[in-house]
């Protein structure tokens, strides 16, 4: 691995891990929402390393675009998200550190035990054919999950509209 590749890898890893840490730890939630952006970009960078340009584009559009905007909008519509005097952790904070550390410990033990099975060389893929093959698979072998996903998106959209509307305001608009 050349020095440039190593530098890119270290930067990408540091960006992803540090921004994930900032998302869960900063007190100002607007800042936490903006820290999602380098996190999603870092994950997208790893998709690029794994030669998945299509997933990188999806990651940019859906996560760094849509999800982050929705999160920031919801943050701006509620209150106490930028007040530095308001506590942003509940009384389970210490227990949360213990729980996630022990979860990580268990996973590390499993990974360490399976290290022999994990040391494999990556197979060759035709990077240009991946997107074409993905489209073919989604409309042949995986057409049922694909259609179910579209039904899920439609019902989620209707549900979100139904939940977020304000019945009182609509009533007043009808009357006056």
């Amino acid at each position, binding site marked *: 691995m050349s020095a440039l590749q190593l530098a890119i890898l270290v930067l990408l890893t540091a960006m992803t891990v540090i921004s994930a840490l900032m998302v869960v730890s900063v007190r100002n939630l607007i800042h936490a929402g903006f820290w999602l952006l380098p996190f999603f970009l870092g994950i997208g960078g790893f998709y690029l390393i794994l030669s998945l340009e299509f997933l990188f584009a999806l990651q940019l559009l859906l996560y760094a675009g849509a999800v982050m905007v929705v999160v920031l909008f919801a943050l701006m519509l509620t209150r106490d998200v930028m007040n530095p005097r308001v506590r942003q952790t509940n009384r389970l904070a210490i227990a949360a550190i213990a729980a996630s550390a022990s979860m990580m410990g268990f996973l590390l033990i499993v990974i360490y035990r399976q290290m022999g099975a*994990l040391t494999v060389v990556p197979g060759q893929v035709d990077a240009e054919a991946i997107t074409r093959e993905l489209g073919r698979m989604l409309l042949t072998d995986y057409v049922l999950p694909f259609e179910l*996903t579209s039904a899920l998106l439609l019902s989620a959209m209707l549900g979100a509209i139904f939940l977020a509307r304000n019945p009182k305001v609509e009533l007043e608009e009808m009357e006056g």
Partner: protein
Amino acid sequence: MMLENLPLPFFVLLSTVLFAIGLYGLISRRNAIAVLMSIEIVMNAANLNFVAFWRYLHPESLEGVVFVLVTITVAAAEVAVGMAVVLSIYRLLHTVNVDEVAQMRG
């Protein structure tokens, strides 16, 4: 491509660390929107794992990538519905802190 010298355990360890970070935020945050942001971190860690295992172990068929596509779609739907729920809770109770919304606690 730089993947030849990059072992699979690197990706597995990275997604383990990200999963633990997301789990911490999921438990410790008070604001419901911050909890949803932590869920996004956990989902992205899982996606990275799917893709890495696909790329190293079964690059001939694209099942792992199809899984990730479905996960991304479900995550988008989850965010939309989750934010709608959070906003209607805020309208009712004027708070989105999950420890203050305890009306259904027995």
